[in-house]
């Protein structure tokens, strides 16, 4: 799940762009408790999840190239070099076309909201449900007193 080694399916430049896109999709929370998705190193994981849909990797790759091209047209070396407001504007422009975020948004959420650090920041134990499960208090039958005071309604 780390971005230390860029994904083999993307060039280093495209990988950097993807990381910046993830930071725009899920930025850090204002209180700093929750990290940004790109900074958390989720680019490869999100890309791998996106690849479960056959056409998605090429859609993502084309979208990243479009963002870099847009950045070039605005005089920047690449998307990552744009000031943040312009990165956001460029992403909104691309998002309006639909396919790019359709391919990338849910995989980004999937990578992010299964990450142990995110789960811990949400106040959850970073573990799967099984085998420990969860404790719940037994059913409180006094809650039913109003129901039982009403006339029978069985048919």
């Amino acid at each position, binding site marked *: 799940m780390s971005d230390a080694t860029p994904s083999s399916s993307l060039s280093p430049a495209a990988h950097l762009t993807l990381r910046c896109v993830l930071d*725009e*999709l*899920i*930025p850090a*929370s*204002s209180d700093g408790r*929750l990290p940004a998705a790109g900074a958390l190193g989720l680019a490869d994981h999100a890309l791998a*999840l996106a690849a*479960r849909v056959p056409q998605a990797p090429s859609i993502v790759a084309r979208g990243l190239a479009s963002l870099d091209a847009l950045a070039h047209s605005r005089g920047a070396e690449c998307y990552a070099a744009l000031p943040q407001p312009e990165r*956001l504007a460029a992403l909104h422009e691309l998002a309006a076309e639909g396919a790019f*975020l359709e391919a990338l*948004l*849910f995989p980004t*959420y*999937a990578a*992010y*909201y*299964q990450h*142990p650090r*995110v*789960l811990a920041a*949400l*106040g*959850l134990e*970073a*573990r*799967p*449900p*099984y*085998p*420990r*499960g*969860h*404790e*719940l*208090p*037994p*059913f*409180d*039958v006094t*809650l*039913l007193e*109003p*129901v*039982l005071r*009403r*006339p*029978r*309604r*069985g*048919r």
Partner: protein
Amino acid sequence: MSDDVVDVLIVGAGAAGAAVAWSLADTGMRIVCLEQGDWMNPATYPSPGMDWELRGLSDLGLSPNTRGLPADYPVNDADSPISISMFNAVGGSTILYAGHFPRFHPSDFRVWSEDGVADDWPIDYRTLEPYYALNDRMMGVAGLAGDPAYPPKELPLPPVPLGKLGETLARGFNHLGWHWWPSDSAIATRAYEGRAPCINLGPCITGCAQGAKASTDITYWPLAIRRGVELRTRCRVREITVRPDGMADGVVYYDADGAEHRQRAEVVVLACNGIGTPRLLLHSRSQQFPDGLANRNGLVGKNLMLHPYAMVLGVFDELLEGYKGPTGCSLMSHEFYATDRARGFVRGYSFEALRGFGPLTTAYHGMTSGVLSWGAGHHETFGMMFNRTAGLLAICEDLPEPHNRVTLDPERVDGNGIPAAKVTYRLSDNSHAMLAHGAARAAEALTAAGAKLTAPEVPMRVAGWHLMGTARMGTDPRISVVNEWGRCHDVRNLFIVDGSIFVTAAAVNPTSTIQALALYVADTMKKNLATLFD
């Protein structure tokens, strides 16, 4: 194997096939069941893994089209506002169901008499009552006696805990003076018949790794096999064959390697669900039955009923801990079950409470509903939703309409080249009105419970769990496919025991009734063995 003749051949090892196999086994007859899926290994269910939520939305998702597993067959549901859910394995869709297990009401068997719509069943609640009770013991059903909405009944296990979420909703219903009751749940709340007790994992609908939820692979099947039933997995039936006199004489099926086999039988029992059964009948064409087996009146596949759902999510200020506990089993309400024509529709709906979601599912629902956006504000919206969301499902009674139907898809096929099922379905005006009422009342209940905002999904798209009516039961061969004990009018050694034979749908989850019917049909067969084909 072509000369081998078994006494009873059952097609499908799900809720109904398991029950009928277990019941018939005590006759000592030679019984074989063919199941296109395989045994599930609970260790491979999602809940032991960190990716448990993602798997529930992908490889163990509810739609066979999305999963696309080798055992699945495609269902073309593009012409339906509700997509079809099912699972193919030993245990069938009980592997992925929530385990919400209410019975039909007595009034559900006399819809025409009560309300002048649809039809009455040829049997009544009293007839099924002992089979409901037997099935409750076999499946291990949890609940609380005394529900004023039902005739008296005893359940073998105590109810599933409500948790903070359920208690919050219960107070909302109490505030409004509305009926509610802890859900009847096919979940072992204590150790039961070799099953471990529920530990409130949460994601029951992706398979229960604990083995507490009553899927038939761990309830009926081990007992049926011990009684001598032979269960052959990864065997997909292509067609039911007939003798020159029009009686069924067995099936042709493909094994896991795609090799074609023939299995002859004295009696054939279909338990393939409300989509799979008409698909198989329609694909079993012969000189005697050119339009499909048991379809001389053209009713096979027609009158599909699905239970339209309205889902309303409510967002609360307080933490509800809804991810703890069985997803679909906490409380139910039958406040709006009976007809009140002042509401603008006939029949009614039940409420099933939906516990909250894990973080990824929260994000998924937020994304698909448009409530949760990416970028600035994402965390604020997510924080408002996660662990603070409860849901109510209004399960609406669907009335039988012949234009809602299952046919064979002209283009798509399964892995063995058998045509896919095609579903053509539209919501009636009655359903639209009921859904709108249900959504409004759900929002009212959630608000009364403290929700600060509510969001409806009407109709809920991924909600075609309940597949009913496509080979309906009746005493008149002109307007029904099977008689009052599941025997096909046209083919007297062919029986159907799944939801296909429902006359009407009621407004509750059907599995309890499907299994009670299967046990009743099996018992009636046993009582009439000497004259079974008369």
